[in-house]
């Protein structure tokens, strides 16, 4: 993938990967976790969460399997693959570099 993915899309992917790196979760739980963790600032709509999940699954970064959820209903749980973990590391490093650069710029004091 030589093309840099666009920022928002790429960021959502990274956040999902990060959340799944902690524990396997179903879609609902991921959306709740996203809201909690970002203090509802990012406001990811559920409409864009599921296409993102399906895309990640098809890239082989996450894997899905069905099992009973907390309330004993069948739910689709996602977990990170080895490839996904590598991707997360790559994106995190990338993010750190870019955000460091950007915050370096925005924190420049006007002379």
């Amino acid at each position, binding site marked *: 993938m030589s093309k840099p993915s666009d920022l928002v899309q790429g960021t959502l992917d990274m956040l999902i990967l990060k959340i799944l790196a902690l524990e396997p979760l179903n879609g*609902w739980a991921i959306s709740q976790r996203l809201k909690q963790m970002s203090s509802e600032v990012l406001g990811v709509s559920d409409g864009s969460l599921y296409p993102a999940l399906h895309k990640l699954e*098809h890239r*082989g970064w996450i894997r899905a399997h069905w099992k009973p959820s907390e309330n004993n209903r069948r739910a689709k749980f996602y977990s990170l693959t080895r490839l996904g973990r590598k991707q997360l590391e790559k994106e995190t490093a990338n993010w750190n570099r870019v955000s460091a650069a950007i915050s370096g710029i925005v924190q420049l004091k006007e002379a």
Partner: protein
Amino acid sequence: MDIEQWLYSLPPRLRSFFHPHQVDQEMKEELREHLEQQIRENIAKGMSPEEARRSAVRTMGGIPQIEQQCRDARGGSVLDDFTQDLRYGLRQLLRSPGFFAVAILCLTLGIGANAAVFSWVEGILFRPYPAVAHQERLFALAGTARGETGAGGLSWPDFQDLRRNCSLCEEAFVSKITGSTLSVGDHAETVRGSIVSANYFAAIGVRPILGRGFEPGEDVGSDSHPVVVISYQLWRDRYKGDPEIVGRMQRFDNVPHTIIGVTPEGFYGTFVGWGMQFWVPASMEETFESGGYKLEDRDARWIEAYVRLKPGVRQSQAQQEISAIAARLETSYPATNRGRSIGIWPLWQTPFNHARTMLPTLEVMVAVVAFVLLIACANVGNLLLVRSFARRHEMSVRLAIGASRVRLVKQLLTEGLILSALGTAGGLLVAYWCRHALVLLLPTRSGVAMYLPGQMDARVMAMSAIVCLLVTLIVGIIPAFRTRHLDLAGPLKADSTGVVGARGRAWMRSGLVVFQVGLSFILLVGAALLLESLEKIRSTSPGFITTSVVTTGVSLVAAGYDVPRAKIFQDELIDRLSALPGVESAAFACVTPLGYATYSSTPIVVDGYQPSLEEQPSVEYNQVGPGYFATLGIPLFSGREFVRTDDENAPLVAIVNRTMATRYWAGEDPVGRRLQVKGRWTRVVGVVADSKYESMREIPRPFFYVPLRQDFERGPALNIRTRQSLSSMRAALVREVRALDANLALYEMITLQEQVNRSTSPQLVAVTLVSILGGLALLLAGVGLYGVMSYAVAQSTRELGLRMALGAGAANLLRLVISRGLRLTAGGVLFGTVAALAVTRLLGQLLYNVSPHDPVVFGLALAVMTTTAIFACLLPAWRASRTDPARVLRD
């Protein structure tokens, strides 16, 4: 997309393809679950159920839209991409139908030739016996003698000892080819059959569809079990499929046999070259074989046999055990077995059937068709290269709008696959038509058509599939290679005004042409070498006169003649023939030289010759009538010919050939000396010149003759030296034979030259096939050269126009293009010469008196290649010379 990524994404993509419905259902369930969860959450916050649902739907956004977005996110499956490529590729190919047709034709010929040869190799060498179980563990069994290459028969007692003692063999059985005259109703014909051991049908796993096979003990005794199993074909054609056939009497060689069984359809026995029509137990061998009762004679080595090894036993292990058994026999029976051993061979090297004669030809064919396939691939690759150049624009645009390079390569490979798959389909069709073609190239012998079928089995299919994949890779990779050089700015750069003769960009196309020319050159050299050998073989003197001597036979055995009656008949017929105008002489002989019948061999003892301890002198001989040497024109060096008085009442005599005289009498004249043949002393009365006995390619070897009357056979060949034509001689002979006995049937009459020609048929087959394929290769190389030169000319019209404007004449341009073409050819010939010098040695066995490096042949091939090249370049050169400078410069 790297490989790891691709591997990881494969399972979900495959799943989407194979279970699209299930994947969709799961997605819907997942979204519904999310919605329900949201509603429950909302209710917990205190909303009414109605309100909770509305709010939840609002939060999520439109469910159908999300579903569609999820489907898009999943993207196409692996096979969606593939079918898309397939459709696209097919459309692309059909846009240039000419290219498409030429490419498919090239591949059809290339792959078809391969599949046909594989099917022959399969059907003749590896799985030669349809319906026979476990052929992969079957090995041929034959006797060997120390100090001799080659292999001969086994004796029945030796075989029985081996069968009893071989612990690594699962089965051992005898199958000795024989022939018989069969009369059903008023129609008589020669049929081929096998003399077999009683365990034969059980051992090969063939169960008769009617009646039974042989029972243990039916192969014991002297003419004691006149029973016969007949083939399905014989049953259907000659007995009209009579369901009551079992139990019927049928005369074979005039001995009544009871038909006890019919073999299943599609079983042809166990002999490469002929389909068998009947099987008799070994106890009947006296009826079908010369030499009397042999089942207890350890010295009569007449049987051909097979062993099936136990699973997992290697040939070398079995050979070790069998050699040990033979060594024990040697110790126990020194009189008969000194210097003798027993060998096993894989089926494809069977020493006693046509597998051996076809092997060198088929080996060469495998190499030759591989060459043809490579040439065809190079041609198609070249055509695709031209197209890929024309498609640079399309490719660049696809790259620019985001197609990955992998995707483009996949597209090109898919196009390659379409071509090779169609080529393979066509090729298999060609192979299917050609599977029996080999036999068409071989002359029929003694009126019985040969049977050398190809087999289109799973292994041939698998081989063709592998070839197809290789071809896909080769023809797909060549243009794909070019995409490496593609960059987005490519089409924007200066347009492609090539220079005729420019290096660089054209190196790959030129390389392919050099490669093609080189390979065709090798094939031309091979074809020319084989042709020259055949010419040499056929013009070499076999040591007897071939043109004015005809050979035939009279079937006395089938007509029920006993020995005294047969002797009288033979003498009377010779007398009558000698009296005919135009007939110079006539003589019977047990075996005609270079025919299929084999000579008997006997251990000999020579007065005054002391063999070394290891050596057991054994020499082949022929029983011939009075006047035989005069009839065949074999020069007599000393002593005398056989005469009428050398009969059963006269002292035993023999005539030896020059090589035998030199070897055993050290150059002294052996006339008057004693020679022990089959345990009886005979006196040498003459020395004759060496001649060819079994093969035109054999080297001179010891050989001797005894009078037919002193070792009598009822079914010998009749040789007539005559000035009459074949047809009038035949008519005269029929008249004379009928005058003696109206019931006698004559065998086919041919000249000895025809006999020589037939004996060289493997060479003829090789020459024919290599010439056909060499011509094909030459054509393909010519097309390749033409393509490259046309393309070069089309690409460099501007340069050509410029040259013309600057004063170059049409002749100059003609020369320019042709010299460029010839330079490519020269490169190819150079490469071909080096390669040919290395590989023509492989023809070894098929060459005769021709050096594989014969300069005349190489020169001839060069001339043919150059002429072809000039013709291939003429049209493009002519086009170049017609370049209109004004128009080119204006454009």
